[in-house]
């Protein structure tokens, strides 16, 4: 299959991107400054991320669509206000996660942002569940640009006036240069920021404009270190079809009002696990010293029993040390529990720690 390219591919090349294949797309892993500098620039200034490979699924419909979607997602969509977003999951009957996603209620339906590697399968699953009653559009004509970091609000507002009035996890349509852009105040770096859905043929000029105002392009490498410092899950690592939201320690994302009556796919398993607890749970892990424990590293207790496995591990540039997430047996999941990580045949000490590793700077209430 031919590798796909986003509308910003040429701009990535001009900015000396090193490319990798990710979910069938040629994506920039880093630019000339490297992952650590890009990471720090995002935390202190404003980073631009091309996330156009992700799926933008528009589903159109009225209250009957809301009712149907409540049978799928563990959310109180009836009481979700227009232009408000929620983090959620597409699950199977065993509450195994097909994908994690952001769903936003828009004027004439919903916009769902899906992971690149999952979007086609998600579309198939949702089409089967919803039937032909609602118009669905996995829109390939729009790019998705994230701008993240403390200076992002000022930079973006100078191009799209009014985005500074958005609260975290809300969005709206804005007019810019005679184009309709959907902007949400959200992101996946632990910083204040926005995601902008924009027609493909306008994306390059828009990003050039952001760069002129002082923002810089940031690759997927730094996106990974940023999200890991923020304690956020990455599908295919922390989350997959064999993990449930309760095991992933994402109970907060399940609407309380949906837990009493269930009625969504996977609700039985979720309700059981909420009551009895899951046998393994996702935790933050800090290796002692400088040792990096990568994905698949085995976790042991002090009597040499394997109690879990690392799902993501790297060096956190803002934490200035190694960080990891993984799953451990419930009895070892308490903060400050001492564990051992097997790296290159030797066991090294580490501690269970609270997430996030890096404190978030989200803007909660501007108005």
């Amino acid at each position, binding site marked *: 299959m031919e590798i796909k390219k986003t509308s910003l591919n040429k701009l990535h090349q001009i900015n000396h991107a090193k490319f990798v294949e990710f979910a069938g797309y040629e994506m920039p892993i880093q630019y000339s400054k490297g992952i650590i500098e890009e990471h720090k620039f995002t935390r202190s200034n404003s980073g631009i991320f091309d996330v156009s490979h992700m799926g933008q699924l528009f589903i159109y419909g009225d209250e009957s669509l809301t009712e149907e979607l409540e049978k799928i997602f563990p959310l109180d969509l009836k009481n979700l206000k227009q232009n408000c977003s929620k983090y959620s999951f597409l699950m199977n009957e065993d509450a195994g996660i097909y994908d994690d996603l952001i769903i936003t209620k828009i004027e004439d339906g919903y916009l769902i942002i899906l992971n690149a590697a999952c979007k086609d399968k998600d579309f198939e699953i949702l089409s089967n569940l919803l039937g032909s009653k609602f118009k669905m559009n996995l829109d390939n004509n729009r790019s998705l640009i994230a701008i993240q970091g403390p200076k992002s609000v000022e930079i973006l507002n100078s191009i799209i006036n009014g985005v500074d009035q958005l609260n975290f996890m809300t969005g709206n349509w804005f007019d810019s240069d005679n184009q309709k852009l959907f902007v949400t105040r959200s992101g996946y770096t632990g910083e204040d920021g926005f995601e902008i859905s924009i027609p493909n043929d306008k994306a390059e000029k828009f990003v050039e404009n952001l760069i002129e105002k002082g923002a810089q392009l940031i690759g997927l490498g730094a996106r990974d*270190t940023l999200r890991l410092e923020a304690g956020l899950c990455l599908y295919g690592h922390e989350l997959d079809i064999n993990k449930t939201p309760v095991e992933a320690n994402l109970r907060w994302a399940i609407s309380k009002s949906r837990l009493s009556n269930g009625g969504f796919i996977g609700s039985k398993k979720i309700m059981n696990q909420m009551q009895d607890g899951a046998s393994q749970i996702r935790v933050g892990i800090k290796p002692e010293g*400088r040792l*990096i424990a*990568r994905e698949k590293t085995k976790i042991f207790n002090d009597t040499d029993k394997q109690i879990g496995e690392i799902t993501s591990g*790297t*060096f956190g540039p803002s934490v200035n040390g190694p960080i990891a997430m993984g799953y451990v047996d419930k009895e070892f999941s308490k903060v400050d529990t001492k564990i051992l990580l097997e790296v*290159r045949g030797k066991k090294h000490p580490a501690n269970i720690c609270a997430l996030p590793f890096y404190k978030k700077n989200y803007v909660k209430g501007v108005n």
Partner: protein
Amino acid sequence: MSEVKFSKEHEWITLEGDVATIGITKHATEMLGDIVFAELPEKGSNVEKDGTAGVVESTKAASDVYTPVSGEVVDTNQSIVDDPAKINEDPEGGAWFFKLKIKDTSELDNLMNKEEYDKFAKETSS
């Protein structure tokens, strides 16, 4: 000191008497990206030609460091363990990895000189 020689695994080596100094090349550091962790062989241990003698990790991945010659580890550079970013800054100078007392200097014969290595690095990275 002898001419600097290079291995296909992107290590450099210089020889002074029977003591060789070994590190990784600038080209290697450029391919690895930001180095955030280094592990060195133990002083007093013996390493074999083409065997693993250390590890470097970048933000992206872990890579083995090989030794282009056999010998006994007589010194290691603790400063790169304490501050791995030094490896990116001065890979072919202050950020050497380890020193070996070698037995067989003929093991250096098949290594590349600077010109040959630059050509090799260019061909293998494109």
